[in-house]
């Protein structure tokens, strides 16, 4: 219950568009092999190109908005993500390891925005959350 509080109190202050864009851009920059899923996104040739790429920004916003759904349904994340899990397996063919990578990056982005407010207890709760989300997204893989 405390962990849920720590999660929602941070989330209420998150700019989903900015944060999502930054997290996805950093994923593509820090772990360049993740670009393999985004060949239709146009120019990903440099960090500057990636950060400024409107498709990256839009997709980052989409992904983080979806994350918000998990936060609204903290007791029911598996069900919430069942269809998305099938999609990521059957249509998108994304290795679940990538969900873990994005989760770790999101934590770092949150840390950079919230600084000391992102306490160790907060980090614990959020690291748990991204783990649960990654697990839920991988759950329907076959």
């Amino acid at each position, binding site marked *: 219950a405390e962990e849920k509080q720590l999660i929602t109190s941070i989330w209420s202050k998150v700019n989903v568009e900015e944060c999502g864009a930054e997290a996805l851009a950093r994923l593509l920059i*820090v772990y360049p092999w993740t670009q393999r899923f985004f060949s239709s996104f146009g120019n990903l040739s440099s960090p500057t190109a990636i950060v400024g790429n409107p498709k990256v920004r839009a997709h980052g916003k989409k992904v983080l908005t979806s994350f918000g759904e998990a936060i609204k349904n903290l007791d029911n994340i598996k069900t919430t993500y069942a269809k998305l899990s099938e999609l990521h397996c059957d249509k998108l063919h994304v290795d679940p390891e990538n969900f873990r990578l994005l989760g770790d990056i999101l934590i770092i982005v949150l840390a950079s925005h919230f600084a000391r407010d992102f306490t160790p207890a907060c*980090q614990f709760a959020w690291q748990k959350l991204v783990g649960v989300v990654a697990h839920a997204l991988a759950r329907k893989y076959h």
Partner: protein
Amino acid sequence: MVLSASDKTNVKSVFSKAGSQVDDLLGEALERMFTTYPQTKTYFPHFDLHHGSAQIKAHGKKVGAALVEACNHIDDIAGALSKLSDLHAQKLRVDPVNFKLLGQCFLVVVAIHFPSVLTPEVHASLDKFLCAVSAVLTAKYR
């Protein structure tokens, strides 16, 4: 994982900005690691792991010094950390997965204290550097 010239510059810029705070940063990273990933505490049954523990501070200093050493000899990290590599292989035998966890916490701490330094490019370089250090420390495990 090969560090490019710009990776090396980026890593040096982080440690130069951190200066003498490196000890505190690592202390904080360790504390966050113990909180966020409780399984890491299993390697420190002999430590007082409460917030502000003198033992964590001392250990942070040790780890920080090793990272600085690696940074100062970034062209030959294996040489610089050879003794530490032996120590981890023969005595400490910390499971390799844990270096990633400490690495994540170190990135979080850098994001908190020096958000403007941790640009996506620097983030990528620092992550690579931490991977390289981990690889050296686990190189002689088997």
